[in-house]
């Protein structure tokens, strides 16, 4: 993508702690425009590549998240799905789901969350996305993790919306109708 990125990839490959100073600078070095992957920007993609290139990135990710700005946090959350952090990433996902930042909540509900969150946390993550207007297409694992309790919660949400005379998001309907089959 850029000479700067090639150099940065080599640097973090040699020493994962270099991520601490490379990560914050990525946006101004490689840009922040859109990519072919919907919702992912050039800096998102570059940061995830850096995480993949750094042996021992898993140990750095909590610190990168804690001291990261919103863009850095988002990249760490995306990175959880490609770098094996065991269960250590659950805490980061939980932190992101406590925010009201749609960029972070969206990134939190990726494949890692679908695999690692317990049932209660996963359901609330999905419900939070619905509340915040995040398209459910962005949420990983709905096909296998939608259970009876989540359907109940979503149906209740839809009922509240209807009672208030407000619209029910269209992408919710397939999940609800499955209940009525």
């Amino acid at each position: 993508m850029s000479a700067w990125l090639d150099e940065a990839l080599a640097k973090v490959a040699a020493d994962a702690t270099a991520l601490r100073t490379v990560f914050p600078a990525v946006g101004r070095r490689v840009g922040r425009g859109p990519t072919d992957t919907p919702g992912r920007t050039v800096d998102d993609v570059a940061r995830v590549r850096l995480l993949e290139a750094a042996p021992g990135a898993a140990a750095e990710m909590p610190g990168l998240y804690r001291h990261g700005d919103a863009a850095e946090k988002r990249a760490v959350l995306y990175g959880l799905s490609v770098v094996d952090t065991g269960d250590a990433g659950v805490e980061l996902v939980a932190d992101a789901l406590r925010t009201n930042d749609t960029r972070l909540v969206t990134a939190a509900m990726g494949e890692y969350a679908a695999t690692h969150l317990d049932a209660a946390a996963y359901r609330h993550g999905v419900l939070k996305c619905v509340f915040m207007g995040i398209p459910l297409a962005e949420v990983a694992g709905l096909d296998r993790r939608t259970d009876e309790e989540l359907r109940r919660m979503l149906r209740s949400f839809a009922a509240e919306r209807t009672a208030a005379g407000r619209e029910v998001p269209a992408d919710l309907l397939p999940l609800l109708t499955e209940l009525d089959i």
Partner: protein
Amino acid sequence: MRIFDPHIHMSSRTTDDYAAMHAAGVRALVEPAFWLGQPRTSVGSFTDYFDALVGWEPFRASQYGIAHHCTIALNPKEANDPRCTPVLDLLPRYLEKDGVVAVGEIGYDSMTAAEDKAFAAQLALAIDHDLPALVHTPHRDKAAGTERSIAVVRESGIAPERVVLDHLNELTVRMVKESGCWLGFSIYPDTKMDEDRMVAILREYGTERVLVNSAADWGKSDPLKTRKTGDAMLAAGFTEDDVDRVLWRNPVEFYGQSGRLALEPDAAPAEFAGNSILRGARK
């Protein structure tokens, strides 16, 4: 009159101040990391503050059409507190953030050995991260402190044109001018420096390498002192171009050395981490 306030602590100010500053012509500012008035007791307290300086505060400023940048450092006063000094190890992470345009405020408060150590270490960080440095000169024993600060800057190897010595007065201006460093002046209601004294200094020493700031914070201070100084300059016969140089082009030149100044406020998201500064129900 376009104004860049190169030193103002907006975290301590209200949204009314942002509105009044914009009305007075302020379009850009730098918020240096400093003491909170109340001692910090842990490193976490610093990092939460730094996170606000690169996150929430630029967002607030953008809502009023003002571009916000910051400087990051362990301040001289708290460099004396062993509960705070470990934050030095975390600075490299923050010194690479987009909105960070200098290392600062560093320098002396009481000229202790611990301050010496933190000052030198942070000048080295400025060199490592290719950033200018903002040096606070002490309130007490100012002339001796300023002289010693110039010596430390010289020893560090940082280029003098990448350093500003701030809070200068009639007794310290000449030595800083001769050092090749930039000259910072904080215009305060009662203390440090006032508009008329500032005009006299500009008459004597010229407008080159001069930065004028309000240094407004949680104490008795006035975020419109930059504008009032511009008005006083015009009243004293300086041209509009002189005023523009002091209040805009000089700070742009100094902090522009970071390569990170972004003077168009971002097309900010309507909310930051779900928080809007607009209170009350939104429909």
